[in-house]
């Protein structure tokens, strides 16, 4: 029973970490608190659903299709919309406010296009849903696959940020954009890449979520809220913090769900509000 709770928590936590790392990158480096983050997840989930039910494309293959496609979309949106806003804003604080509002606009646009295409119904498909027994607890195979992919993607991404040149440039831009620019980092390109990478993470999370749960075009905001909670929990802008925060929130959610399934969201909000009041900088924040 105890193992069951922990594994269920890790599965949720894996997804939470993935979406939170994306948001953390967009906010931590680019100062865009992207309210439409969940809509990118929704796009990934629906693309996977359409590809699977219409063409029979395996959801794991969609993972490789959706990710890069959404990266490109995110890159493009930052290059046009957010870069223009950033150049025009007087201060970084003003940019944070106006980009938040602009991302609300994006939310409405993406969500309603999705509603026009896919309608407001709940959709689902069954893929890899044979039961698997781990340490006495029984899970469907797709959850274990999702956990595996979520953890490996996060790990690869962490290594990418730590060891590659682009990764170092991204961390430098997060630390101090002006100095990074002086050192030869093309800041506009780097910010657009960061925003694109955030969308890439959403593009990976979408297909994984669609394998496990039913999806609908209005599902995005729920994941955005969870991502925001995790990002604040881990410390705004800290990638490692988001990973730790995601798994912690997943575990907490799993424990609360075990005792009273209706209370898990309430528990998230209570933790979040207490956190903002007591330690707004999060676990690893400065």
């Amino acid at each position: 029973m105890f193992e069951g709770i922990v594994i269920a928590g890790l599965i949720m936590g894996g997804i939470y970490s993935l979406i939170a790392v994306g948001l953390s990158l967009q906010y931590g480096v680019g100062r865009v608190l992207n309210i439409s983050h969940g809509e990118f997840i929704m796009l990934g989930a629906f693309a996977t659903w359409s590809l699977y039910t219409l063409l029979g494309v395996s959801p794991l293959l969609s993972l490789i299709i959706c990710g890069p496609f959404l990266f490109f979309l995110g890159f493009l949106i930052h290059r046009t919309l957010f870069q223009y806003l950033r150049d025009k804003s007087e201060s970084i604080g003003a940019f944070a406010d106006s980009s938040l509002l602009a991302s609300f606009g994006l939310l409405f646009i993406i969500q309603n296009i999705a509603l026009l295409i896919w309608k407001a119904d709940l959709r689902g498909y069954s893929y890899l849903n044979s039961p698997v027994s781990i340490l006495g607890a029984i899970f469907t195979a797709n959850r274990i696959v999702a956990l595996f992919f979520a953890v490996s993607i996060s790990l690869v991404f962490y290594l990418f940020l730590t060891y590659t040149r682009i990764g170092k440039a991204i961390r430098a831009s997060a630390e101090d954009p002006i100095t990074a620019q002086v050192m030869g980092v093309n800041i506009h390109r780097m910010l657009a890449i960061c925003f694109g990478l955030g969308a890439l993470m959403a593009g990976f999370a979408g297909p994984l979520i669609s394998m496990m749960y039913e999806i609908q075009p209005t599902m995005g905001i729920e994941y955005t809220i969870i991502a925001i909670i995790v990002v604040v929990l881990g410390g705004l802008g800290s990638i490692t913090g988001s990973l730790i925060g995601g798994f912690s929130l997943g575990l907490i959610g799993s424990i609360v769900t075990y005792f009273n399934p209706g209370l898990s969201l309430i528990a998230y909000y209570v933790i979040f509000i207490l956190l903002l009041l007591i330690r707004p900088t999060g676990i690893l924040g400065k």
Partner: protein
Amino acid sequence: MKCLNVITKRPFTVVGILLILILLALLPLYTKPYPVISLTNILMYIILTVSWVIFSGPTHYISLASAAFFGVGIYTSALLGKTLPLPAVVISGGLASFLLAILIGLLTLRLRGMYFIIFTFSVSELIRHFLLWWETNMTGTVGRWVVMVSHTTVYHIILTIFVVTMLIAYIIRRSRFGLALRCIGEQEEAAIHIGINATMVKTLTFAISATFMGAVGAIMATRWTYIDPRIAFDPHISFMPVLMAIFGGTLHPYGPVLGAAIFAYLEEILTTKFPYYYMLLFGTILIVVILFLPQGLFGLIQKWWKGGSGQENANP
């Protein structure tokens, strides 16, 4: 101290405004019910937007707690509607929101910028989810019934709230209190330094703006007759005033009225037939306004009006 000079010398035609108000008040006598009902909806959005601007306009603290105050008003109406007369219900709705806002205001003193935005949002979501859980597990019924009132009465009460909101918004804007708010918005540390009690001013204004949202919620509940936490604390109510205010422009008092009126009217005609196209249009216009019209629609109109002959507030 520059902000102390911002006093506009606009000719203020009291008579004209009174005339329009009398015409509006008599509207139910000479039209069919439908225009009155749709005007009630438009007024609801105008009040929500104007009261949002009372606090968030000058201070630049973006609050996403409107749904919490609106919903508290709705639930006050559901709980007290059967026992108290209607005006008392509306006033208690306002008072309940006032108290909640004082509490939230006192809790959020340390938070600024992004933290304030997400805090206010999560408070209203917490209330929604908690109430949903409470109603399902403790009282056993998710929804509640509200006593129905004739649409003319609803209209007259909402018109009264509208007039009071506009008056209070005007008074706050023109008083020392409003100047203090603008100073806080410009540079909070400096404002505290010149002797403004920032905590008191912010919390009180936040609570005043919440009062009107609560009062509107209390009266609108009688229109819907059936309510549940999902309807009452719909996050949509938190987003709309922000976006309508940005669209209209927050610098001038009529900006929010204009923005809310246009979008509420569009919602009236589009939302039943093409709800998705309405929200799509909304999102697109919002982005266009943020990109190209930072002063909002009213800023644009003012610019045309003046014909580019210099700024209105250039001289004290």
